[in-house]
């Protein structure tokens, strides 16, 4: 082997080992991105592992069959939504169709989950239509509870979360997501102090559990303008901003845009 290649290989090895040891998050992030590109949502690792397991048993592993079926019809939308009713024991076959991050999260088998009769909120969408305007995050992005089914912190039931919870301190400034008009500003038992902004082309955003509102109905706001301060009014266990994004009455996952 030519000399420069030996130097190249050993230099790369030493540098990469050093970086890997000092900043273990960098390889992990890169790995996630590489996996996203190579495999998208499909877990090839488990499929290959299931293949290895099947070999000694002389029959196809049930997980492998599942994986093959998944590849045959991997629709993220309705097909993956766990149907209504008592499904204890069969849950591991389904992926969790909520936020982008939990797409691959398989619910653990044996966990009993009873979904409301109205299976997966029909008025929600896992799509990500492009927004025809500029926007900013109302508070610095730190999602404390994602969009989708979750165990409700107060009700204790498994309910659909129509927006996302962003961690915020009491009194922290909440900014307008985009240019728009305040179509509602008021109080509700669940939402606490909240307001709704109507943006262009049928999009609107909702900000809930505010400590105080700085706007009134009908007021025109610019993107990034102060509309209130974060708090824990209404049905909340701590100060945070509950943020919803709607498009013609359809709830979108705001996390895609933040």
């Amino acid at each position: 082997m030519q000399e420069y290649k030996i130097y190249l290989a050993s230099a790369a090895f030493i540098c990469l080992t050093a970086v890997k040891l000092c900043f273990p998050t960098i390889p992990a992030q890169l790995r996630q991105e590489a996996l996203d590109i190579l495999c998208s949502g499909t877990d090839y690792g488990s499929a290959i592992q299931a293949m290895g397991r099947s070999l000694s048993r002389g029959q196809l592993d049930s997980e492998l069959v599942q994986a093959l079926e998944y590849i045959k019809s991997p629709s993220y939308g309705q097909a993956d939504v766990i149907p209504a009713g008592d499904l204890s024991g069969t849950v591991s076959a389904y992926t969790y169709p909520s936020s982008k991050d939990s797409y691959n999260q398989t619910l653990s088998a044996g966990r009993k989950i009873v979904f409301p009769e109205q299976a997966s909120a029909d008025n929600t969408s896992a799509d990500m239509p492009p927004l025809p305007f500029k926007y900013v995050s109302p508070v610095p992005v730190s999602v404390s509870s994602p969009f989708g089914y979750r165990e409700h912190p107060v009700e204790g039931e498994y309910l659909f979360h129509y927006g996302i919870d962003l961690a915020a301190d009491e009194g922290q400034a909440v900014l307008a997501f985009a240019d728009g008009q305040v179509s509602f500003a008021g109080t509700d038992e669940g939402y606490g102090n909240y307001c709704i902004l109507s943006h262009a082309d049928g999009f609107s955003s909702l900000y809930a559990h505010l400590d105080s509102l700085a706007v009134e109905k009908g007021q025109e706001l610019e993107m990034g303008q102060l509309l209130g301060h974060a708090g824990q009014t209404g049905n909340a266990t701590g100060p945070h901003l509950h943020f919803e994004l709607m498009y013609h009455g359809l709830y979108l996952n705001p996390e895609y845009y933040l």
Partner: protein
Amino acid sequence: MKTEHFESGTAAILLAALIYFIADVDKILAVLIPVVVHELGHVLTLRLLGLRINGFKAELKGFCIGYCGYTGALGHVLAAAAGPMFGLLYAMSASILAERLGSGWLELSAGVSLLLSLFNLLPALPLDGGRIVYTLSSTLLGESAGARLCNILGLTIGVILLFSGAWLMLHGCGVALELSAVWLLAYTGTAPAARLSGQKELI
């Protein structure tokens, strides 16, 4: 004097460095060990056939083992088949052992070895399956007809993989298969080296 040496393309070094950086060590080993077993299959068989190995090459194309010496068509076929056979044997034993020990890592390694061996058995050059077909067909039909047959087979399989890969991609399953199709199509045309100093390969 023995002249065994190891060579590596720059691109292969960079790719290996990238994989080393990104992947977990246990995952790398789960892939590396089947690869080593596969190559060991080739090497041991070549040695048993009395051929001389004069070098290893690691390229984007895969691993090549350069060898020289004379053996009949059957010898070439045996040497080519030995890699996947060793791979399948390893997969089987790793899988059985995994069941005994309950080791997920061994299951993974067995699965990788199984996939690797099956992929290598595809009758398309430069895969082992393609080498077997090439050796047999060029012995039976003559050198040029054999090469033509292998080119056609390679392109056909490459295109089939390309379409299946595209289908998987559209179904949200990532570009893994598509990449392997592109890899195959990129290298399938490369005519095998002369018989006597033939190269045995691939991952």
